[in-house]
């Protein structure tokens, strides 16, 4: 399942990425395989989204959240 498909308040664990370049950036920002992510909110217009990961709040576009596979 993709991270972008989660609803507000739902949690998941990162298992893999579908885009290598993007995965480097995401991992640098703390989105590592095995980390738990929780969807905190969506922007008023539905995109981007804010997630809680590695103890802080990160925002990213849905298209970027698409590359994160979660469980």
């Amino acid at each position, binding site marked *: 399942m993709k991270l972008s498909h989660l609803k507000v308040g739902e949690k998941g664990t990162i298992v893999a990425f579908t885009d290598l370049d993007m995965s480097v950036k*995401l991992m640098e920002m703390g989105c590592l395989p095995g980390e738990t992510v929780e969807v905190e909110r969506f922007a008023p217009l539905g995109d981007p989204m804010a997630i809680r990961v590695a103890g802080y709040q990160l925002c990213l576009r849905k298209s970027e959240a698409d590359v994160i596979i979660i469980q």
Partner: protein
Amino acid sequence: MDIKVALVGNPNTGKSTLFNRLTGLNQKIGNFPGITVDKKTGFTKLAAHVEAEIIDLPGTYSLYPKSSDESIVFQVLADQKNNSHPDVIVLIADASNLKRNMLLYSQVADLGIPMILALNMIDLAEKQGIKINLDKLSQKLGVQVVSISARNNIGIDRLKQAIHHTNKVATQFQDVDVNSLAPEAINAIKSKINSDNDYYALQVLHQHEYLNFFTAQEQEEIEQIEQSHHFESAKVQAAETVARYQHLGAILSDVITDNGTAKKYSFSDRLDAVLTHKVWGFAIFLLILFVIFNAIFAWSSYPMDWIESGFGFITETGHEYLPAGMLTDLILDGVIAGLGGIFVFIPQIAILFAFISILEDTGYMARVTFMMDKIMSKVGLNGKSVVPMIGGLACAVPSIMAARNIENWKDRMITIMVTPLVSCSARLPVYILIISLIIPSENVLGIFNMQGLALMVMYLVGVVAAVLVAWVMKFLIKMKERSYFIMELPVYRMPRWKNVFYTMYEKSKTFVIEAGKVIIAISIILWVMAAFGPGNRFENIDKKYASALADTTKNTTHIETLIATEKLENSYVGILGHWIEPAIRPLGYDWKIGIGLITSFAAREAFVGTMATIYSVDGGDEDTSTIRERMAASVNSRTGLPVYTFATGISLMLFYAFAMQCMSTVAIVYRETKGWKWPVIQLAYMTAMAYFAALVAYQLLK
């Protein structure tokens, strides 16, 4: 200088606060070659006779740059010949989010430069229930670890001592086995560049294209090593990042104790629920924008008036007491007037940056980007572009400086390119003058004043043009780097008033020094062109009116005005106005308007003053009703028809709506983009657009 220190750290870790804390106002702003980020350096006293130079490097999450601005970090650290290359690195980490911050530490440590780890915001971390065992961490890393709070001035002296006592030789442990990531390629590079540092060699493999200290031949050889060993950059980066986090997990496991995770974000979360709410979020944002707009539009008008009348007073008294002559005129009407034109921007710059610095500091700006991204990214802009665009309603100069806060290079460039299209306050006098000439002051539908409607339409035209041009540029401007939106949403905090003050001071100073040079140069050129004419034309004018002036029984004011008019017509500007007439005739303009277009390149509002001189109005630009009467009565010498018809008026307003008639904006774009390429493109496209719009309008309406 005794010792060079570089500050390295993630964004939002309080790096600039620490920099300000260490250096005070003892700062210098310079350039890193090739990028738009300023190089900030400053000095601090470490001990009685030891001074350190502090270099503030751009915030970054890793040594792998995602933008050209971030690439400077590795360039400075890697190149020992770079004049910013530090003796000691102070790595600033956010103590409340240590693991992510330590990734950069771990990368930088492997470069083998002596370093210190500064855990910032230690007070905040403790409040959140995070405890860090500094001694244990220091032992495990092999470097000094200092806990500080730059905001609350805790531990700064300890940090200075630590810098002073840092060993000349790097002591940190390099525990991650970098070599195993790509052993053959790394070993080949090591022997090629004569280095025994595995990580440096690996970074060279990744980033050599961006490193300007290799020769073309070296670049080619490195590229060959990359090819022959099938070096896959992204894959190796991913593997390295995972390896580093694994190692950090092991180090940090018994160093940090955290017992308050659940509660610590509740305050920020509750604020976010309101501030990014579908209705309230936008309402509050609009309110904030209105306050900012009002501040730079209305509040700044008082100090601006003081500055203007102050410089006016200097010029007047100067003319009274200094011996009359060319040098006096050059100094007073060229240089002093130019300086006045620069200083008059300071209130707007300072006020806008006070707001921006508060919005950034509190963490609200990140939410603005979050809320506005969807709309703004459609037209090639950034969520943060909203602030410069709204600021553009008052003045493009501080607004273009405000675009600095947009991290993405392409978004920043597009914002800079379109902000001057938003109708600024300098267009207002031009619009008002022309609207009063061509639009009757009647009401439609009982309540709407036609002139008011026309003014509103002009403002809308500017905004629509800005959005359209941004959308076009989205396709035209190419960017090497991939752009991300992945961004930290920092927790809400109180603004640091000292930082707000520093920002106001620094931005005003930068503008005066950097953009000021260009503005002074242009105003001197414009003054020379207006104050001199070819041959002895000016002398003849003086002779012609000499007898009339000598007659002290009559009021000579009007004669002086006539002299000024005739001199302007015969000056180089006047000649240029005549010369461009064929080009602007299709727009409905005569040579008098041509002169106005040239003089108002200094600033748009100068058009009104020029019209006053050309139409010999004694009261100058104060007397708008007389200017209006004279302009309305003027007829074209060729056709005998009135010059200011409806068609010409609309054409002229459209020209002023689109044309880059502002040398200060040109100067600030030059300063912000660090080169002439973008200001020239901007000047060209805006002038072309203005010409075309005015041409179409006049030809359709005449």
